[in-house]
């Protein structure tokens, strides 16, 4: 009998239509080697259940304080305070919360159960030219699980895409390559040192992987550039990023305008968001870069 592995996932999102072509399902895997300050999915960075507390739904009954079996919830000025380092993710507090203010993100699910969910929309993938996307976090962090899922999807004939930071040993990428139809590969900056410094990732490895993957399968890659004011939102930076992408033979790039929609999640996780003063970008503001991309032979989407 086949042994299926267990994955740490955030969720399987169905009818995902912006993570690759057609109607897709996106599997959000937990774990990421990077810590980008603008990250919109902070709950994806580490594996395991993360307690989320929405203060606006809290009715201040403090039932959670009373029931926590390890005393990790205390009352402070009439509201609960959670010691997340001690939280064991048992869910007792959630079960007594009348307002639904407490939830957990992150659970373990076997790969066959994940594929079971994916299979339900197979007819929609076929009709629309869609498929399955693996996102994160960084999906390569759980490589054995990712590989298993890719093989299972290939067996079923689903188109597969991976959203990746590229920060993984090359062997993983090479092994995955035959089972992946599309890499949505992050290119956050042209300077490897900058990537090390700002995101905590391995800039050199990321750039080497990008180049190497492109040399084997450039047409399977769409570069994705998160455009973040104060980090890479200058014409010079973007030109250099375009040049880097084009030099590797990749033809498509998406610009992802900075947004603040993940900000609330930081407070719900009891964390601080460091980019609080940075303004969102609109698609319009970036529209000029479409033409600039063309100068480099890139087809740029926003």
């Amino acid at each position, binding site marked *: 009998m086949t042994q299926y592995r267990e994955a740490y996932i955030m969720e399987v999102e169905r009818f995902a239509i912006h993570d690759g072509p057609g109607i897709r399902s996106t599997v959000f895997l937990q774990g990421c080697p990077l810590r980008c300050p603008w990250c919109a999915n902070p709950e994806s960075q580490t594996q395991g259940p993360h307690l989320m507390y929405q203060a606006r739904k809290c009715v201040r009954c403090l039932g959670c304080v009373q029931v926590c079996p390890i005393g990790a919830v205390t009352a402070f000025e009439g509201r609960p305070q959670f010691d997340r380092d001690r939280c064991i993710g048992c869910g007792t507090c959630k079960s007594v*919360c009348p307002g639904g203010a407490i939830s957990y993100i992150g659970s373990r699910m076997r790969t066959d159960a994940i594929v079971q969910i994916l299979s339900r929309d197979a007819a929609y993938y076929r*009709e*629309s030219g869609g498929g399955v996307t693996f996102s994160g976090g960084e999906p390569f962090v759980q490589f054995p699980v990712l590989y298993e899922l890719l093989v299972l999807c290939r067996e079923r004939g689903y188109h597969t895409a991976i959203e990746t930071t590229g920060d993984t040993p090359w062997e993983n990428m090479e092994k995955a390559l035959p089972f992946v139809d599309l890499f949505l590969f992050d290119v956050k900056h042209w300077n490897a040192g900058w990537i090390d410094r700002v995101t905590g990732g391995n800039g050199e490895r990321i750039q080497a992987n990008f180049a190497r993957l492109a040399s084997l399968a450039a047409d399977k890659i769409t570069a994705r550039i998160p455009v973040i004011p104060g980090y890479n939102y200058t014409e010079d930076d973007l030109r250099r990023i375009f040049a880097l992408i084009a030099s590797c033979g990749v033809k498509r790039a998406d610009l992802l305008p900075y947004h603040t929609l993940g900000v609330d999640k930081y407070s719900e996780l009891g964390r601080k968001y460091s980019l609080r003063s940075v303004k969102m970008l609109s698609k319009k503001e970036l529209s000029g870069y479409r033409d600039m991309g063309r100068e480099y032979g890139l087809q740029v989407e926003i």
Partner: protein
Amino acid sequence: MADKTDILKATTNVEILPKLPIDKTPEEQLEIMEEYTRVHQATEDEPKEIREVKCLRVLYPRMFRSIDDRDLIAGRYDALPIGFGCVTSVGGVGHYCIFNKLETFREGLDEEQKGRVDALAAYWERRDTKAQFVNAYMDGVIMNAFSNASYACPVAAGIRLSGMMLDYNKLVAKGIDGLRQEIRFRDDGDGNPFYRGCLMALDLFADCCDYLAKEAEKRAEGAAPRRRKELLRMADSLRRIKKEPPQTFHEAVQLVWLYALLAGVINYGRLDDVLGEFLQRDLEEGLLTRQEAKDIIKSLWLLIENKRTTVNGRVIIGGRGRKNPEAADIFGRLCLEVCRECRYVEPQFTLRLYEDTPPDMFDMAMQCLAEGATYPTLYNDAAHIPGLMHCMRVSEQAAEQYAPFGCGEMNLVGLTIGTPNSIINLTKTLNIALNEGVDPYDGLYKAGPVKLKKLEDIRTYEEFYEEQYGKLHDYYVDLCVEAQCNSYKLLNQNVSFLFNSMLMADCLEKGKALLDGGIRYLGGCCETYGNINCSDSLYAIKKLVFDQRKYTLRQINDALLADFQGYEAMRRDMLDCEKYGNDQDEVDEIAVECYNRVSQRVRRIGIEKGLHYYGIVIINNEANTKWGLKTSASADGRKNLVYLNPSNNPQGGADKNGPTAMLNSLVKLPVKWHVGAVQNIKFQKSFFMENIELMKSLFRTYFKNGGCQLMVTVVDSGALEDAMVHPEKYPDLIVRVSGFSAVFVNLRKETQQELLSRTLYDAV
């Protein structure tokens, strides 16, 4: 306890917009109603057919409204509080008196006139069709006749002949004289009053043509040249169709419209099949330009809109079983253009999709929807035809003639009576069963002879489902079937619906009126409400009481009786239970089980009681809301007196896995057990527009998966602001956030605000 006859004073049908004011003086209206009443009284001993025509003669042509300056087709009619009809949407049913409308009418009169109205009311008190129905068959507690007041009951019934789909192909082929000939040919001279009545009805039709032709000619005098031409064409057409079959598109439209009007019919069926060849010929021969043809269709649209029947006015295009699909599609394409250009609430314009639907027509339909028209509603032949063959017990050829009417019930053109004359509230049924026979809504005992168990004596879920809910459910279903049969019996005692009978198989052949054994397939349907609240509640009970043993049945019932006050945590547990609409098999299977139980019993008992078929419909008008307001809290977490789930859809907000999951849940209900189940789906406008190709794929896949129907709402960005104030109205409004899509009202307020500002920013 409400007196069961109070029901006669209550409003009956959905009326979102009031009718156009009657264009006759109150005195004249009163005189006509008095005349109608006199004739009705004087013909008491005559055959019902003769009485029917003589009464119609009082109303026609007198109650025609004058021709509107915009009309290219003649025929507007005002229904009085007393008169003759088929349905409650225009006047009433059979020989009727609508007491609440008569009372309103009375208010504006002088004392002498008031006395005359009172005399009329006294006469009709025992003669109005609905009054007879209520007095003979309604108990007033478990079942009452349809009205706002009947929603305290778990079941209700109506007496009406809704949704008739007449064989207009026969009408335009034969013409009025052709029908006369057929009647004379079939009448073997033994004085069958049905044939006599039919001939008299056709005479009346011809007189109406003359009357309207004269009016058109009179109006043509002194009219501007262009209008004069239009009015004279109207008069010419009327004089032609008075006797002969129509030769042109205009004549054919005029004939169908006027005949439907006199028949009291307000759903128009497969007009592309009837009118397409006339249109094609006129266009080819240069008798009409495309624009002129479109203007005629627009005029028809306006006439339908102005009737304001709210939940009717079906015009259907497309699908299998049309005699000349190419010609029909010429008409269909023009209709789609008119649909884009005229934003009316009626006609309920409907597109039947099948293997040969031209791609451009599907694209045009999607464009209409994207722009927020909400029309056409989409039907899938591949699902419906085999489904109806089974449920209605008819051949494939017959099932191909299906035509949705009203809110989504079905008839087969020229072949069936499928009127929905009973309705059942499954959530209320469950609540009464759970409360051991007493309706928590009003404290009245409503289990009749059914012996229900004490909750403490129930050991298993199966026992609860079969012995408690099931028994009560079956009892109510049987009452519904009985009421439907009784409505036919009573109608047949009083009326023949002659104009309907002449165009329905096999009335002329048999020499019998519709309900006198004439119609080929006497069917009908029962509307079911609260299906999903009921099944989600059963699932929660199964989980929390029998699987997890977290609560007892008694505790659940106590919480519901208290509307969850003091039981907030239990309510959260109920809300946390999985819900139908998320493509999760365990809970969806309970929905399928509930659906199978009600649909199969309705059908089986209906057939046992002598109907050719009896099916359920899962449709929606406002009954889910209004009935919900009289339905106590339910175990799915729904609070006391809150609207019920709409039609076949999850309770608002319960579907959280996106449209593919919702649509996958929908297709789990086997089509072969119903005669109409409608699905609502709603999208945010710019999202829909930007992703229209994906939307097409979404719908196509759903139909390939066996989905039978879709009603698509696309709302514009102004709706988002409203959604913040009234989130309960927008439970499934999908918006694009950024890198992900979400249901608007599920987003945090801050995110909503952010989206709002952004949308306005991008709006220009």
